[in-house]
């Protein structure tokens, strides 16, 4: 009988410990079995999952407590699925404080790869803006800072390189979107030791394939692909169409996965950063970062199929 009491106590204790562990580390408890595929950041070899999390529009929810919690749920699912890189900008309204709220709720997962931007005309105001962004996130330092849309890049890049040299930043990058100022992007990539470049890339926006992606490979620069779904417009336009029968060979169950597999299978692309407000979409997106990925012939077929619709 005594032995029986001890057994029950031991069992209850083990259950309680399990519940506590799940409560303390919810994203670990929910972790998917298959982690997303990774690629190395060329300048260091550090592995980065092929899927990140964008925050443009989706995380700009102001002080709406319900929507902030939804964003935190998205972040929780993202980390639980093996995600690391979250990307934001001072331009994105309240997205930075909302990320900070989510990180605070989740206990700032060690896996976090924090990517933000500097976006201000005045070069001398850059450090102040960066510090404000860091405070919003609540992180000791950023992993990656990028000059947003090349705004005053001549003034900001020296600041970012100085921060990196001082150990207050790990990577430096630049961004553009929707094909803007690609000539200038190329010049910066060729002349400055940046670690990352962020550009728009998806099956319908492939201008970067001609020069920027090859240059990134040559120069050892990681590539972040933004606007993978054209802010959702691409998914909406494809919603009425059926996936091709051969999409099953790529283990894609949705247009989102079809598009993401196309993007991340380019040899120069390090990761894509789809944005979403739904946990189900986070899981769906992360599941795209898995084998099999399309080979060059299949990638051409994917483009032809979408362009033919």
């Amino acid at each position, binding site marked *: 009988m005594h032995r029986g009491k001890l057994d029950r106590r031991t069992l209850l204790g083990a259950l309680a410990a399990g519940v506590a562990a799940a409560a303390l580390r919810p994203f670990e408890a929910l972790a998917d079995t298959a982690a997303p595929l990774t690629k190395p950041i060329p300048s260091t070899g550090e592995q980065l999952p092929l899927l990140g999390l964008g925050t443009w529009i989706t995380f700009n*929810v102001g002080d709406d407590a319900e929507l902030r919690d939804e964003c935190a749920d998205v972040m929780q699912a993202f980390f639980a699925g093996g995600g690391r890189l979250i990307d934001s900008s001072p331009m994105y309204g309240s997205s930075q404080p909302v990320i900070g709220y989510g990180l605070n709720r989740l206990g700032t997962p060690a896996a976090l790869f924090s990517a933000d931007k500097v976006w201000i005309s005045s070069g001398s105001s850059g450090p102040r803006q960066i510090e404000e962004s860091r405070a919003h996130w609540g992180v000791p330092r950023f992993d990656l800072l990028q000059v947003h849309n090349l705004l005053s890049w001549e003034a900001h890049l020296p600041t970012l390189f100085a921060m990196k040299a001082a150990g207050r930043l790990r990577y430096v990058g630049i961004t553009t979107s929707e094909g803007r100022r690609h000539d200038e992007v190329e010049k910066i990539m060729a002349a400055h030791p940046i670690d990352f470049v962020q550009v728009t890339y998806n099956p319908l926006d492939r201008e970067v394939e001609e020069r920027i992606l090859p240059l990134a490979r040559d120069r050892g620069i990681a590539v972040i692909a933004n606007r993978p779904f054209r802010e959702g417009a691409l998914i909406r336009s494809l919603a009425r169409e059926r996936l091709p029968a051969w999409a099953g060979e790529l283990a894609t169950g949705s247009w989102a996965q079809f598009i993401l597999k196309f993007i991340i299978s380019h040899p120069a692309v390090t990761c894509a950063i789809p944005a979403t407000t739904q946990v189900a979409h986070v899981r769906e997106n992360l599941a795209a970062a898995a084998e099999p990925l399309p080979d060059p012939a299949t990638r051409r077929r994917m483009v032809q199929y979408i362009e033919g619709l």
Partner: protein
Amino acid sequence: MPEWWSYSLSDFLLFSPRTYYRLIERYNEAVWPAQIATLALGLGCLALLRRKVWVQGRIISGILAVLLAWVAGAFLWRRYTTINWAAVYVLPLFALQIVLLVWIGVVRNRLTFQVSRGFTGVAGSAMLGFSVIAYPLVAPVLGRGWLQAEIFGIAPDPTVIGTAGLLLLTGRARWGLLAVPVAWCLVSALTLWAMNSPEVVVPAAAAITVVTAAGFNSQKVERQRELVDDYR
């Protein structure tokens, strides 16, 4: 902004329609029952149009200034800027409008509001009536529910459109006083257009109506002046 022509309207929309309309909803909940007071002030303006009270112009101008100040402070500054940093740049325009109303209408008593026949009078009356009485129905009609209703004196669009309507009832085209309402209607229309919201027709129609009615009134006044000159 470099290569600004390569940006589409949606590139300037920082938030989702859901976030915007939830902002309106939470704002309505937070300020309740202020809606009753502002609607009463709007109905009071409508009633004063029929009264020949010597301080009528001062009272209506003062009411409009107070309501615009409330909208600017409680909504634009305290709430809208949390999802749209660009809203900060609209605040000086609201401040200018308030100063003009107080100076011209309250201090100098130069504004007299009256319902008149003709296109300008009908347009001004219709805009005021719509903004006070019909605007709260727009959200429920579009399926968004009463909590997201935009009320005169609380939300910017009905307040500004009602203000513009009243200013059309001052007897002549006051372009200086109409500039900010028209500018806001255009900004609001562009925002709603980017959000794919059917409500875009309301501020767009208001801006077109104000410009057309004020232009019509200017021509009418000019013709009357020419007639007087000919008679002399």
